[in-house]
């Protein structure tokens, strides 16, 4: 597949998409039999783990699945991540870049309307994006938008972004749930609490941390989407309560069933467990600027002293795959499948310790279940496995409260997770670039950072594959992040709930766009 500079239907994940399409055509998908044509109707009731009384509709503050799913149902984004992983125009009709990929022009659909009937204009888009930029912004997506030097509307239908440097993956940013489009108030700002959106559903009632009731818009501009008549999302924080509610038919779909008791749910004949591979991964970042982690041999010793398989089996209960010390998931574009897998090998770990001039090693791993569910167990398993290599991993349990402020990025060795990003560039820029706010390992590999910039502005797909492949290898052999496992997203639903054969696997539940994409049998 060649990479065209201007694309209305991007083909970045050409190969994967192609094979998936072949699978669909041959009827190989396990859901083929169930997934008939989407039908309209029904009320979908969802039980979600997350959701808080402190949630608000302000797009700068979304921080949990409840708000992500709501955001995608009620509002829309310029592009969406298609099931094949490509960036598909949504509110934008098309987008194109100059050859240096530094100026991007997004053309808006002219039939897209807000729920109050107003047509979406370029001014609305500019105001919505600006809400997340500038000194006053408290948005979580602010660092991602720092590359934008200028946004302006060119007429009513065209928005032009000028970037500080070329970025071939720039459109992917606009799938972010923060970057939903609201109405311009006329002064270049948006009303953050406004309920008027461009999505397939309108909010009937919203009680933060309890429930939201959505009803389908009859005049929704997008064809073949928004099949449910109504959707109710309930926050059911307790895993047992969620599973009970699914079993008794009070909800149709739940996220994050308790993996320890999921086999009980499986016994129920009307319930289906659904797993997605996704980009979610668990990490143990080491500060490469702090001794002893400043020695690459120490890092490699630790990378070979962890029993990844045991963590997948015992902590993730088999719902995951082993990681290879780089953050790119096998489902992502430009995944390097040729890298040798790092495995548990105490002898090799000892060998690397020897190269570092050490007989034994004492390190402290800071952890809390706030990092990810099971982080403490995983750390203890690591500690036990590492003993065989003469490495003493001292597990220090930290409080869940304030973990991200006081431990992550602060302590030289801790546990963490990444929800994943749609492309290697976004992932590397967020967590591994030398100047990234969240460079959790303080890694400053020159070659890696050169490649990052070069690949970002490169529009040739083959060259990019090569560059991203090398970057994954650098992460694996030189980087400071120990990435023991990729987690699967697990959800459970009753037999009525149907989904397309291929769904987006970046985040849980069709990347949280299930409300618009799924339907009832």
């Amino acid at each position, binding site marked *: 597949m060649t990479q065209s500079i201007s694309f209305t239907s991007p083909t970045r994940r050409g190969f994967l998409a192609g094979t998936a399409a072949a699978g669909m055509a041959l009827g190989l998908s396990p859901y083929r039999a169930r997934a008939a044509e989407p039908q309209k109707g029904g009320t979908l009731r969802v039980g979600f783990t997350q959701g808080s*009384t402190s949630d608000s509709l302000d797009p700068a503050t979304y921080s949990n699945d409840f708000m992500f799913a709501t955001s995608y149902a009620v509002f829309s984004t310029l592009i969406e991540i298609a099931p094949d992983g490509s960036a598909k125009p949504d509110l934008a009709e098309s987008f194109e870049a100059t050859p240096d990929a530094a100026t991007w022009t997004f053309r808006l659909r002219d039939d897209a309307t807000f729920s109050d009937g107003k047509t979406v204009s370029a001014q609305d888009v500019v105001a919505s994006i600006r809400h997340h930029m500038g*000194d006053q912004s408290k948005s979580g997506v602010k660092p991602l938008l720092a590359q934008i030097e200028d946004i302006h509307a060119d007429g009513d239908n065209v928005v032009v972004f000028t970037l500080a440097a070329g970025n071939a993956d720039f459109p992917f940013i606009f799938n972010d749930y923060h970057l939903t489009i609201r109405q311009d108030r006329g002064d270049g700002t948006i009303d953050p609490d406004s309920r008027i959106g461009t999505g397939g559903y309108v909010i009937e009632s919203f009680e933060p941390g*309890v*429930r939201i009731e959505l009803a389908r818009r009859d005049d929704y501009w997008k064809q073949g989407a928004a099949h449910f008549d109504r959707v109710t999302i*309930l926050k059911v924080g307790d895993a047992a309560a969620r599973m009970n509610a699914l079993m*008794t038919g009070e909800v149709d779909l739940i996220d994050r069933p308790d993996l320890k008791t999921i086999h009980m749910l499986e016994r129920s004949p009307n319930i289906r467990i659904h797993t997605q591979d996704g980009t979610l991964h668990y990490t143990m970042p080491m500060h490469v600027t702090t001794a002893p982690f400043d020695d690459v041999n120490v890092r490699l010793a630790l990378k070979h002293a962890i029993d990844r398989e045991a963590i997948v089996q015992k902590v993730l209960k088999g719902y995951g795959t082993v990681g290879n010390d780089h953050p790119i998931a096998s489902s992502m574009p430009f995944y390097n499948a040729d890298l040798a897998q790092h495995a548990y090998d105490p002898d090799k770990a000892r060998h690397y310790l020897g190269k570092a001039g050490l007989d034994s090693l004492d390190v402290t791993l800071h952890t809390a279940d706030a990092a990810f569910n099971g982080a403490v167990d995983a750390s203890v398993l690591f500690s036990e496995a590492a003993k065989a290599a003469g490495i003493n991993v001292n597990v220090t349990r930290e409080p869940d*409260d*304030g973990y991200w402020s006081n431990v992550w990025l602060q302590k030289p060795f801790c546990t*963490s997770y990444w929800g994943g990003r749609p492309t290697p560039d976004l992932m590397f820029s967020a967590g591994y670039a030398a100047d990234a706010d*969240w460079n959790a390992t303080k890694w400053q590999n020159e070659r890696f950072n050169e490649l990052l910039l070069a690949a970002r502005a490169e529009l040739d797909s083959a060259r990019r594959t090569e560059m991203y492949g090398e970057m994954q290898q650098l992460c694996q052999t030189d980087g400071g992040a120990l990435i023991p496992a990729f987690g699967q997203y697990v959800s459970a639903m009753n037999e009525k709930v149907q989904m397309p054969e291929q769904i987006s696997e970046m985040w849980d539940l069709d990347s949280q766009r299930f409300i618009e994409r799924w339907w009832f049998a």
Partner: protein
Amino acid sequence: MTRLQKLILSRLALGIATLFVVSALMFVGIELLPGDLAQQILGQSATPETLAAFRAELGLDQAPHTRYLDWLSGVVQGDLGQSLASGREVTDLLSTRLANTMFLAGYAAVIAVPIAVTLGLLAALWRNSLFDRSANVGALSAISMPEFFVAYLLILVFSIKLGWFPTLARIDTATSLGQALHVTFLPALTLIMVVIAHMMRMTRAAIINVLAAPYIEMARLKGVPRWRVVLRHALPNALAPIINVIALNLAYLIVGVVVVEVVFSYPGLGQLLVDAVASRDFPVVQAVGLFFAGTYILLNVAADILSILSNPRLRHAR
């Protein structure tokens, strides 16, 4: 002014002073917790710039005592302020949750208190009988099991096996009273099982204590029937401790039901408080905390007054 009125007034004044102390303690407590609202909301995606912008917008960059005094001056003027996290008025946020909590507490209390007192009386009346023993064993077993365990057992039997009641206690403004009583029956039953033992045992013990007094012996000697001895002679004199323990349990039903709320996903004040503490939303924590403290104070004052009214020796000055 009678002695009783004076007592009530002085107790209420003390109560208000207590509330001030409580609010200051809660404020210090929240300040001591690691992280602030900006960090809790932004979580992993926090950067120094976004944190600073967030704090400036919410006034979290002010010194702690300034923020406390600002809040306090609002409260004395009857303004509980806005939630820092969602910007909603705290009074709005509280009102539905408060109604839900009071509904569930009232539901449980209306059933639990009469049953507990009656069981206690009967157990005292038939002391050491089979009835007494089984009532004690039953009540003590119920209280010995943690609430969430009782709740899961009830869900297993009544929701999953029998299908009589829903597992999620969802109520909103559109729910009719009948529906509300139906969907909240299991949480109410859980609470009933947890509070009954305490009240029943106290009733039994208080009555038995009085039954040892000489005037009871006198009543028995002059031929008063046993049930009448218990009801007419013993109960009035045992009221004070019973009232106190009922007040304590009522307070518990209002302030201590977080676990039951979580298990049944019931939108009460407990959940609100947990969410608010987790996000360091201090005006909401303060409002809920003050309400809880006020509940304890008022119920204790009420219990004391009722105890005095039930005791002629205290009612009339010597």
